[in-house]
C-alpha cells in the first residue's frame, strides 16, 4: 500500500494509529487520580511530541543516512519560526502560508550553510555547522533585533498589518493562529467515567503534517536516492570511484533535513505564536542529536520515539515536586516514606536532568543502536535462541536485504 512494502506499510499504519489515538493512550490515568500527573495527553505536550518528531525525522535523513553529524540544526528550526511569525504579522494568521514560507526560508538558508559546511567532513563539518548556528543565535539576539525582536522575541500584535486578513474583512482573532478559521488553540474535551481526553485542533494539524513527513522519509529511505546516501555513510571514497558525485547528494540530504527543521519551526509558531532566539542555541541543536541517537540512528521510527521520550521527561518529570511525592507516599511509615521521597526527589522536579542523563547512559550501555536498535537486536536474539539456525536461513531468503534499516 502507498507504494511501500508490507512492513513499511504496517509501520506507517502503526504510527498513524499512534498519533491519531494519542489523546487516549497518553491519558491512561483518570483525572484527579494520584497518577494523573503522568498523563501526557494535554495539547501543548502532544504538539511538542509530533513537532519535535518531525525535527528528528528530518535530522535523521542527514545524520542517519549520510553519517554527517550536524551540530547546528536548531538554526534552521529557529529561522523557520521567524519566517512563520513574520508571515503571520504581515499577511495572515492562517497557518498555511506561514508554514510554507518557513520551509522555503529554512531550505534556502540550509542550502547556503550546507554548501559551505560540506566542503569539510567528519568533525570539521560538525564544528562548521555549530559555528553557523551559534552565529545565527548571537545575531538574532543582538544585531538583528529589528527583525528578530532580540531577547524578547516576536509575537503577533493587534497593530500588525495582516494584509490578507484585513482585505478579507479581518475575521477571526487577530493574535490567534488558525487554519481557515479553525483556531489552533481550540480543544474539545471528552469525559468518560472519570477519564478526560482532550482533542486539540493544533495537535491534529501537526499530527497530519508529521504523518506526511514520516511517509516522505520512508520513501526517501527506500529510494535509490536513499541508497546512495547510505553508500556515502559507509564508503564515500568508493562511491566517488563508482561514478557518483557525492557532493550534491549530501547537499540534497542537508537541504531536505533543513527543510524538515524549518517545517518544525513553522509548526511551533503555528501552535504558540511566539519565537525567541534561544530556539537556535546550541543546546537545542544538541537536543535533536540526542533524540536521534537515543531512538536509534538510521532507523525510521527511532527519532520519533527519542523525541517523544525526551519531551515527555522534560514536561512530566520536571513537574513532580517533593510535595506531590509526599502525597503519593503518605501511606508509608514516616521514616520509610521520607527516605523514598528524598531519593525520588533527586530524580524528579528540578532534578529531572539527572534522570535524563542516566537514561542516556543506560541506553548506550545496554541498548547499542538506541531504543529501536536495542529492541530489534533483543527480538532477534530471542528469535534465534528459540528457533535455531534453520529459521534464520529461510528467513534470510524471504526478507528484503538484511541491511535495510530496521523499523
Amino acid at each position, binding site marked *: 500500500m502507498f507504494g511501500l512494502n508490507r512492513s513499511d506499510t504496517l509501520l506507517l499504519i502503526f504510527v498513524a494509529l499512534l498519533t491519531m489515538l494519542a489523546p487516549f493512550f497518553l491519558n491512561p490515568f483518570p483525572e484527579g487520580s494520584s497518577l494523573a500527573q503522568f498523563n501526557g495527553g494535554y495539547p501543548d505536550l502532544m504538539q511538542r511530541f509530533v513537532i519535535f518528531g518531525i525535527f528528528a525525522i528530518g535530522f535523521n535523513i542527514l545524520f542517519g543516512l549520510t553519517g554527517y553529524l550536524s551540530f547546528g540544526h536548531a538554526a534552521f528550526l529557529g529561522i523557520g519560526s521567524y519566517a512563520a511569525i513574520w508571515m503571520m504579522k504581515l499577511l495572515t494568521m492562517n497557518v498555511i502560508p506561514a508554514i510554507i514560507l518557513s520551509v522555503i526560508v529554512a531550505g534556502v538558508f540550509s542550502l547556503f550553510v550546507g554548501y559551505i559546511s560540506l566542503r569539510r567532513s567528519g568533525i570539521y563539518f560538525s564544528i562548521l555547522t555549530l559555528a553557523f548556528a551559534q552565529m545565527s543565535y548571537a545575531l538574532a539576539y543582538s544585531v538583528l533585533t529589528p527583525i528578530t525582536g532580540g531577547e524578547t522575541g516576536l509575537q503577533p500584535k493587534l497593530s500588525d498589518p495582516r494584509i490578507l486578513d484585513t482585505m478579507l474583512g479581518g475575521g477571526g482573532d487577530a493574535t490567534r493562529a488558525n487554519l481557515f478559521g479553525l483556531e489552533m488553540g481550540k480543544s474539545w474535551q471528552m469525559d468518560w467515567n472519570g477519564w478526560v481526553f482532550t482533542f486539540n485542533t493544533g495537535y491534529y494539524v501537526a499530527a497530519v503534517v508529521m504523518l506526511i513527513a514520516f511517509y516522505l522519509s520512508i520513501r526517501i529511505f527506500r529510494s535509490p536516492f536513499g541508497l546512495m546516501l547510505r553508500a556515502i555513510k559507509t*564508503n564515500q571514497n568508493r562511491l566517488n570511484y563508482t561514478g557518483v558525485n557525492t557532493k550534491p547528494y549530501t547537499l540534497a540530504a542537508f537541504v531536505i533535513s533543513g527543510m524538515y527543521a524549518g517545517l518544525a519551526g513553522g509548526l511551533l509558531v503555528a501552535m504558540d505564536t511566539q519565537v525567541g532566539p534561544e530556539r537556535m542555541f546550541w543546546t537545542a541543536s544538541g537536543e535533536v542529536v540526542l533524540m536521534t541517537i537515543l531512538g536509534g540512528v538510521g532507523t525510521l521510527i527511532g527519532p520519533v520515539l527519542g523525541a517523544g521520550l525526551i519531551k515527555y521527561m522534560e514536561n512530566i518529570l520536571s513537574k513532580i515536586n517533593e510535595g506531590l511525592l509526599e502525597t503519593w507516599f503518605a501511606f508509608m511509615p514516616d521514616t520509610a516514606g521520607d527516605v523514598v521521597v528524598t531519593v525520588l526527589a533527586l530524580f524528579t522536579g528540578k532534578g529531572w536532568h539527572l534522570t535524563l542523563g542516566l537514561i542516556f547512559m543506560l541506553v548506550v550501555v545496554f541498548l547499542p543502536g538506541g531504543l529501536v536498535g536495542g529492541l530489534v537486536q533483543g527480538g532477534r536474539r530471542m528469535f534465534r535462541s528459540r528457533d535455531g539456525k534453520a529459521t534464520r536461513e529461510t528467513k534470510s531468503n524471504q526478507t528484503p*536485504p538484511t541491511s535495510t534499516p530496521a523499523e
Partner: protein
Amino acid sequence: MAILQVRNVSKRFGGLQALNDVNLSVEEGTVHAIIGPNGAGKSTLLNCFVGRLIPDTGTVMFDGKSLLGIKPHEINQIGVSRVFQTPEIFGDLSLLENVMIPTFAHRDGAFKVNWWNRADRESDIQDHAEEILQEIGLYEKRHEIADAMSRGDKRRLEMAMCLSQDPKLLLLDEPTAGMSRADTNATIDLLKRLGETRGLTKVIIEHDMHVVFSLASYISVLAQGTVIAGNTPELIKGDPKVKEAYLGTEAE
C-alpha cells in the same frame, strides 16, 4: 587501436622522481600488465589514470579524451572502473545493494535525486545486479552484509561492482595481493573467464609473476619511474634488461 595513451608522464614528490617520462599505450581488448619492483611507481601511475593524482607533465588520453584534471567520478562515467588493492566496498550494505549502486550510477549518471521510486522495485537494476552476482558466484550470498564476507569474496564483490558498469577499461591494483594459492588461482580463472565472455580491456598491476604470465597479453616493466621494456610475455621473459632490473632480483 589504443584505448589508453600515456605520453611523457612525469611526477615528482618532493625530492623523489616517482614517474619519469613514462610512455605506454594499452590496446583495446588486451590485458596489459604493469610490473616492476617495489617503489617503481606502479601505483602512482595508476592513480594518474583515475584522477587521484595529476602528473606534473605529460598527457593521459582515454578513448580520445584527456583524463587529466577531471574528477574521479567523471573518469568513471566515461568508462574507467578501478579495483583497489584493499577491497573498497560498501561494508554496511548487502552484496546486492553493493552491486546495485554502481549499476544506478551507470544508468542515472553522477547525480540524480530519484527519491520517490523504490530501489527494490527498479527491476532492470535489480536483475542486472543479480545477473552479475550470479556470474561471479556470489548470488547465494546476495542478502548478506558485505563486511561479513571473507577477503577473497570482498575482492570478487568489488570486481562485480566494476563489471556491473560495463566499463571500457578495468584497472586492477594487485588483485591477488594477500591471497592464498587456491584463491589466487580462482581469481585468475575468473579474470580469464571474464576476458573471454566480455573482451574487456584490463590494466593489471601485479607482483605475482604467476598471475602476470597467466593473464597478460602485453607486459610493461616499470623501474625507477621509467618504462624499461614493453612486449609480449614470451619476449619479456627473455629480455636481459628486465631480468637485470626485476626478475633477476625478485623472482625466485
